[in-house]
């Protein structure tokens, strides 16, 4: 008999037209690893929550979920409590929010042990330290007394894995377990998880939007779209011969680091648009005298029509660098030249002619759009600031023209940001940045929050704009696949320093610096995927 049997599962909410999950059936055998892949809104997380019995009270659930002989749908709290930890446990997406910030991590583990009566009170501490040892947390004796904020993201995720392992469960549900982590940390965490699973023959249900992760870590894959299961099968079979068009679309949207390098956007004699010399960023800590150097002094330049990528993990100083160039960090040093004019370090000190040439797109599309303004007002604002844009009718015409260029229907102009999807919102943000026909566009992780297919469309859009207007792009990202696909040159940053700087080809095929090599090696690849 299967460990987990999901039969005809439907999850619906009173206020929404379409069910979040529709007639879903699948099985997981003991020790098996299964991945669910899909875009946001595909119903992946709802499925995970249903299996854990964690759906909110207003969810309408039909069908059945049987786990090791226990029915989960409609089960009492007591039954669920018995099943959880012993038969099933969950690893959450964001380790920073899944741990209680006010409680020491050791204590959080101890509570689970005692709550389920898995160990006598006097042995609890010892058992917790053993668990922390098992997840290879350095110095578990000391970390037992650490608060979550004293641990790094990777260490926190290790603690969560330890918490999931507490009751030796038969099945671990991992909902985007590494999305919040850097790529090198992601590789470590996944290796650890696989190793632990093999030791105890634990089954895994992994939920992610990253096809490469699934192809590396799972035996079988379920592809979901709009709440429905569209394809199911062994990873190699599904990824090499996708039967459903949605699977094919997902596969096509994967940015691969082994893709061919793009044609160089800038020609040999392209004029430099931006030249930065000895740019450094130092933050003064609140404690007097303490300084934190976010960016060590560095030089860089971007030519017209060129795309330069700045790659690094969190804490590498790449965002500080981008914000310093945008003029949003007053505590920077060094000099900048933009179109042969000196560029002031503070945005308020820059003349309007420069401001309209240097634009930026931010990471979170929703927080970069004012929730109280309509799309048309958002796009029109830069036009109205940079005078000489003409009357209302001209502005309206330019706004609707811009909307079309970024692939949005004109009737979206009257919407508010919260009525847009993530992809639409990011298009609006790009429209706002491009409406003044800038010379340089800074994209600070502008593609990171988007689904694969949407990301693909935005990349195409940016490339088209670059062709049309000789736009230069400064792309800040941790996603090497995207870099491979659109950037001419790459700067790799680590702890505020430039480790390596070279052309796309040089970095991806002849990396010199050990950090660059480690970074490239950690990127999950889809070896079995058909070209």
């Amino acid at each position: 008999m299967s460990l987990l049997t999901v039969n005809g599962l439907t999850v619906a909410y009173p206020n929404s037209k379409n069910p979040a999950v529709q007639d879903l059936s699948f099985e997981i055998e003991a020790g098996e690893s299964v991945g669910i892949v899909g875009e946001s809104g595909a119903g992946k997380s709802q499925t995970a929550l249903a299996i854990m019995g964690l759906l909110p009270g207003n969810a309408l659930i039909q069908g059945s979920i049987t786990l090791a002989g226990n029915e989960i749908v409609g089960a009492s709290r007591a039954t669920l409590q018995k099943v959880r930890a012993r038969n099933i446990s969950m690893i959450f997406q964001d380790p920073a929010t899944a741990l209680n910030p006010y409680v020491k991590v050791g204590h959080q583990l101890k509570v689970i042990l005692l709550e389920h009566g898995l160990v006598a009170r006097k042995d609890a501490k010892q058992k917790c330290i053993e668990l922390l040892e098992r997840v290879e947390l350095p110095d578990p004796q000391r970390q037992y007394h650490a608060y979550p904020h004293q641990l790094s993201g990777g260490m926190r995720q290790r603690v969560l894995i330890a918490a999931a392992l507490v009751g030796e469960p038969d099945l671990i549900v991992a909902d985007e377990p590494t999305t919040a982590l850097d790529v090198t940390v992601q590789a470590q965490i996944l290796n650890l998880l696989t190793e632990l699973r093999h030791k105890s023959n634990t089954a895994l249900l992994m939920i992610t939007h990253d096809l490469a992760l699934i192809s590396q870590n799972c035996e079988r894959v379920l592809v979901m779209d709009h709440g429905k299961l569209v394809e199911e099968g062994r990873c190699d079979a599904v990824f090499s011969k996708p039967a459903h068009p949605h699977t094919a679309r997902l596969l096509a949207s994967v940015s691969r680091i082994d893709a061919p390098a793009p044609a160089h956007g800038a020609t040999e004699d392209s004029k430099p648009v931006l030249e930065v010399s000895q740019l450094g960023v130092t933050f003064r800590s609140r404690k007097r005298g303490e300084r934190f150097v976010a960016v060590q002094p560095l030089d860089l330049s971007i030519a017209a029509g060129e795309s330069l990528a700045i790659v690094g993990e969190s804490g590498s100083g790449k965002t500080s660098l981008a914000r310093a160039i945008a003029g949003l960090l007053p505590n920077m040093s060094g000099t900048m030249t933009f179109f042969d004019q000196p560029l002031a370090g503070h945005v308020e000190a820059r003349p309007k002619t420069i401001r309209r040439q240097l634009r930026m797109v931010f990471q979170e599309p929703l927080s970069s759009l004012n929730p109280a303004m309509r799309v048309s007002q958002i796009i029109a604002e830069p036009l109205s600031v940079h005078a000489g844009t003409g009357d209302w009718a001209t502005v309206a015409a330019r706004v609707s023209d811009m909307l079309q260029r970024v692939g949005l229907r004109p009737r979206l102009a009257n919407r508010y940001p919260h009525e847009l999807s993530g992809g639409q919102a990011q298009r609006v943000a790009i429209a706002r940045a491009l409406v003044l026909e800038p010379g340089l566009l800074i994209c600070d992780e502008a593609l990171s929050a988007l689904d694969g297919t949407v990301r693909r469309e935005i990349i195409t859009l940016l490339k088209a704009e670059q062709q049309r207007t000789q736009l230069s792009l400064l792309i800040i990202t941790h996603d090497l696949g995207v870099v491979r696909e659109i950037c001419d040159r790459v700067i790799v940053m680590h702890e505020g320093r430039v480790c390596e700087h070279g052309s796309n080809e040089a970095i991806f095929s002849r990396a010199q610096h050990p950090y660059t090599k480690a970074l490239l090696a950690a990127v999950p690849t889809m070896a079995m995927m058909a070209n």
Partner: protein
Amino acid sequence: MNSTAGIHRARYSIRGNRLVLICLGLLLSIAALSIVGTLVSPHSVGKIAFDQNFIGPTLDGGHWFGTDDLGRDLFVRTLKGTQITFFVAIVATMVSLVIGVSYGALAGYVGGKTDAIMMRAVDALYAMPFVFFVILLMVVFERSLTLMFVAIGAINWLDTARIVRGQTISLKQRAFVDAARLDGVSNIAIIVRHIAPNLLGIVVVYVTLTIPQIVLFESFLSFLGLGVQEPQTSLGALVSEGAARMERAPWMLLFPASFLALILLSLNFLGDGLRDVFDPKSNKT
């Protein structure tokens, strides 16, 4: 910038929130009654008729709520008092809003030393015994409605400023403010166009909770005899008089007190309901 996301959201969910609707309806009908009632009644606010004092509530002669110790009609006086109370509450709230929102938004947006100085000034003002201060004002100057607005507004804007400042600081860190700065939008325009509309939700909720406070404070001042001047009256003054004559003429306390209680309850429930309505997490459209 007439309509904002907050109001937009609110429009959907107010309809679904029965408590808010009932309270809003109740407040509007009390306001309407206070205007229509004074026109319909044959009596006037200040007319004294010693031969008709202490008449209980009756349908004869138009003394629907009875008369007071001087023979004045209590129906008209209660409704007039309601008008004044509403008036004081709305104007004082406006005063406190205008000062508080601009002060708080400015301090929060500029930040740094300016913020520190502005907010320490607020702290210093907080430390002053305001009831005493208001009483002093009322004694030194002529008692007048204008002075009352100023005095009450001057107390309340401190809270508003603190709340608005906190919100502004968190809004300021959102990427859309950075985007506006890159657009070249001036600082004033950022406050007016980008910060203020997003404060609306919390401010609206705060206002509905402030009004009852102001109504109570006005009643308190009138109760002390420092409020509105005869022959004008307010609910607070009427309750004060009624309390003194409670044994002889209970209706003198009963009617103004029920009006006051009804208004305060409605406003408090309204504030409570609006808090849910404006909480973006509570509804997604």
